[in-house]
């Protein structure tokens, strides 16, 4: 795996990966990616002194099976919808696999274990476990793994709304971010594009 892919992966982990980076990750060598992804998370957990109860779960095979089942529904959508949902699925797989991939071999042997678990646990959504109250200091490993979601940069409607919101937001931000009037360059440069 080259450094570009590694950087993209690190970006994905922080929820900052662009669509391009996501594609780069998806087209790279799968095994190497999974290993690196697991390593990244393991080292972060060690850094944070956290022990996850999901450490040894591997639900990747089950997720794959679910996706296979979902494909029928997806194929009804139009081209771009398919593309977006495909990305979303890829992203959610990435998010869920993190939890399960630590310390186990993704391709050999693990599917048996997952199959054994199926009857007992049913559907498992560990990525949804994080919820913190307003003001609480909470950084969970799951939160960091969640991807940025689909980007709507090409949607003209959404773009227009974004500009209007950014303008209103800047009215509020300019007095609070230490930059003052300079903040409006963000709005102006956008409008003149």
């Amino acid at each position, binding site marked *: 795996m080259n450094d570009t892919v590694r950087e993209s992966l690190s970006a994905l982990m*922080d929820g*900052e990966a*662009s669509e391009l980076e996501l594609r780069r990750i998806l087209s790279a060598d799968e095994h190497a990616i999974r290993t690196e992804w697991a390593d990244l998370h393991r080292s972060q957990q060690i850094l944070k002194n956290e022990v996850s109860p999901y450490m040894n779960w591997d639900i990747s095979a089950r997720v794959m099976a679910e996706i296979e089942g979902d494909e029928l529904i997806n194929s009804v959508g139009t081209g771009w919808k398919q593309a977006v949902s495909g990305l979303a699925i890829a992203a959610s797989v990435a998010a869920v696999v993190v939890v399960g991939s630590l310390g186990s071999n993704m391709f050999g042997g693990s599917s048996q274990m997952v199959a054994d678990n199926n009857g007992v646990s049913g559907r498992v959504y560990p990525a949804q476990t994080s919820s913190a109250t307003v003001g609480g200091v909470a950084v969970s490993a799951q*939160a960091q793994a969640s991807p940025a979601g689909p980007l*709507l940069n090409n949607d003209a409607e*959404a773009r227009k709304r974004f500009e209007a919101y950014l303008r209103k937001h800047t009215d509020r*931000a300019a007095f*609070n971010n230490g930059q003052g009037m300079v903040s409006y*360059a963000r709005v102006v440069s956008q409008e003149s594009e």
Partner: protein
Amino acid sequence: MIVRLTCAALAAVLASAPVFSLDSGSELLNKMTHSHRELNYRAIVTYQLGDQLSSYRITHTVHDGKEFEALESLDGDHQDLVHHGHDINCVHPGPQLIRLVNADEEQGFYRYYDVDIEGEGRVAGRDTVTLSIKPRDVYRLGYTLSLDKETGLLLRSDIVNQQRKVLERFQYVMLDLNIPDDELIVDGAIEVEHKHVALGAGATTARIRVWRPNWIPAGFTPLKDTGEENAALTYTDGLAVMSVFVEPLLKTESDAISVSEGGMRRGASVSYTVAFPENGMFATVVGEVPMLTAKQVAKSLSWEPR
């Protein structure tokens, strides 16, 4: 443990910075929050977004206790903004959060960012001190700020993501601090709105608003906003600012807006939109924060049962 390590690292940095201590760094940061409102100056500023560079002339004066500001674009389409009559004593929460530092280092702003003095330099022909401000969690962006040694004016600002990649950059290329305070007037400029905002006495606005985010990152304080209580909320941690906007999905009975969930990104600014069909509303979080933050805040919105 990590905090202690950071402190040790900080101490090491301090020991190696002969002229500036952390105190003077935070002092300068504090200065930054008000000097740009108090001084008379004219400046040329460049704004860089990816491979795009644009430039602006900024004029700021204080006359009879009122601020006047103008921003004129110097390339591309003519775009001018003015803002005047803002009371110089008007208090905003962002600077207040940064000021808290002097009281207690582990409080407020400094609890969420590590501030290091990176060195000294020159920007726009002025001597500067460069501060590296790194977020302690994944919900904020990082900053590299070059502040004018004499005035504390922010002369260069890089906003960087968690991978330290620069998302946008402001840089002064010329600064003139000797302009008369009645120097002014840009013709045909657009007046900028000033929201009367103060530190959030949430109780007064909660009565009107029926929605709220159930999660915001620690350290973000809501601004109290005298207008639009029902449509917008803004939070700041002293450097990062994010706003939540809520709009009905249906403008009229027949005219439904199609809203797809997703994010937008431009420079350091992102937005994330989530539809709440069961409430007939959609919410958009906009701000200079990581996409992750915007998304999580947008998704956490809930409505009071009516």
